[in-house]
Structure formats: C-alpha cells, structure tokens
C-alpha cells in the first residue's frame, strides 16, 4: 500500500535525511514530484537515499546516470520516463537509492567533489536570483515610462514580487556558500 506525504524542503540535505528516516521506519520513497512524496512499505532501513543536482550538460548527465546504475544505485522514480513524470525525470535534481545491505551509500566522499557539487547548486540559485532581479527591476523601471494607472499597478506588483523571489534565491544560496567555505578551509589542512 502506498502512502502520499506532502512536504516542502528548501535544503536538499534535510530532505535526504528525512527520506532516510522514513526508510528506517519501513517507508521507501518510490515517486516524487513538487512537494509530494509517494512511499511504499518496505523492510525497515532497506534503502539509503541520496539527492544530487546533475551536471547541466545532458550527455554528461546520461553517462553519469549509467555509471550510478553500474554501482548498484537506482534512480527514483525508476524506469524510463512516462508521460506523467517526463517533465520531472528531465530535471537536474535526481534521487537515488541503494540497498543498505550493499554498504554505506555516499555519492561524494572527498572535499573536492563535494565542493564541486555544492558549486553547481550555488550557481543555479545565483543565476535564478540574477534573472529575477533583472526582470523585477525592468518592471519597476517601466513604471517611470508609463502614465496609465492600471499598467502602473501591474508593473509594481509584478516587479516587487519578482524581486522578492530573487532575494529568496539569494537567501537559499547563503547556506550553500557557507558549506563551500567550510570545506575549502578544511582542505587547507587535510585531504
């Protein structure tokens, strides 16, 4: 029997930890979409879950996905994309699971590769923030050109909300930046 949980995470590592807690309770993630998780009953702690942001280049990402498979990891949801989840399967954020019986499951095990992964995430947040801030400011600038009162209101509302969204992405990027800095400092003294 499957169980649907609606939940929203802003930190992928907290999301990962939660999926592993659920798995420890005997609920294994089989499907996910925006703020929606579908679990199926399994043996307690059968799977270990990891979340990753793939490389932007689809060819590079495809090679990597195949490599993950070879090492016993399974993508969730599994299989080829269906009509319903195609949009989701093409996304860069991917969920993996591997049987706990195969040993500890970590994707990145040294500082350099962890930093590289965080930097990918950081770049995505920053470019989203940059885009939103530009669109927002353009809307606000249009106000000065427009005298018609109705359009003025629309531009103001769109402009302000888009700028808030841009600031939200900057806020999301801050903890990632701290993690990168901490790892880089650690790297100065040990591998």
């Amino acid at each position, binding site marked *: 029997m499957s169980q649907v949980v609606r939940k929203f995470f802003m930190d992928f590592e907290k999301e990962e930890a939660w999926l592993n807690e659920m798995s420890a309770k005997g609920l294994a993630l089989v499907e996910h979409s925006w703020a929606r998780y579908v679990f199926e009953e399994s043996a307690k702690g059968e799977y270990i879950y990891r979340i990753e942001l793939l490389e932007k280049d689809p060819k590079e990402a495809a090679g990597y996905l195949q490599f993950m498979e070879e090492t016993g990891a399974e993508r969730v949801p599994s299989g080829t994309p269906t009509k319903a989840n195609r949009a989701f399967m093409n996304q860069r954020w991917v969920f993996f699971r591997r049987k706990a019986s195969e040993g500890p499951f970590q994707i*990145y095990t040294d500082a350099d590769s962890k930093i590289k992964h965080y930097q990918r995430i950081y770049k995505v947040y920053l470019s989203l923030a940059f885009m939103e801030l530009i669109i927002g400011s353009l809307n606000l600038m249009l106000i000065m050109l427009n005298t018609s009162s109705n359009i003025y209101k629309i531009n103001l509302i769109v402009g302000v909300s888009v700028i808030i969204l841009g600031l939200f992405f900057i806020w999301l990027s801050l903890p990632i930046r701290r993690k990168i800095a901490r790892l880089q400092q650690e790297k100065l003294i040990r591998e």
Partner: protein
Amino acid sequence: MALSGNNEYGALTEGVYYILLSLLTPMHGYGIMQNVKLLSNQRVELGAGTLYGALSTLVERGWIKLLAGGEDSRKKEYQITELGKSIVQSEMTRLDELLTNGRKLMGGEV
C-alpha cells in the same frame, strides 16, 4: 578530485592513488570501488560521484585510458597508462620521504 594542478610533485588524494593502483589490472567503475575498499581494509570508500569525476579527469590527463570496446559495451573498462605508472612511482618516492623524515624525527618519541 584534487590532482593538485599540473604540479607533478603535488600530493595525490588517497582516492586517486588507490584508483591508479587498482587500474594496473583493467577494471570497470564498480570493480574499482570494491578494490579500493579491499586495498585499504575498508577505510577508503569512494562515492560513485567522486569516482566518476576522478575517472574523467584521469582520462583527460592521460594517466588512465578507456579500453577499446568500452563505447559499445554497457560497462566501461579502464586501465593505467605508462604516464600513470610514472605518476604512481613519483608519489611513492614522495610518500617514502614523508615517512622517512617522520620516523627519523619522531623515532625516539614513538
């Protein structure tokens, strides 16, 4: 994975060092992970993401090569090159120096 720039004298990460040693025998990705674990008495566990990145970099540098037929078959096999072997040699010399100096200076205390 750190390969310390282009500096030949830079330290290899232990992951890279063990990957190179493993590839004295042709191996595919999962085999390398298992072998590194075995060589290091379960101490070094390479994550798949870390290993994948390291393999691409090492191929790019010419320290290892992808074996022919690897493109068609699903599992890619890798092997160390002569350049790779010389890199391992100089790393061993470097490690030897570290150990010798450590033993010489700490010798009385340990």
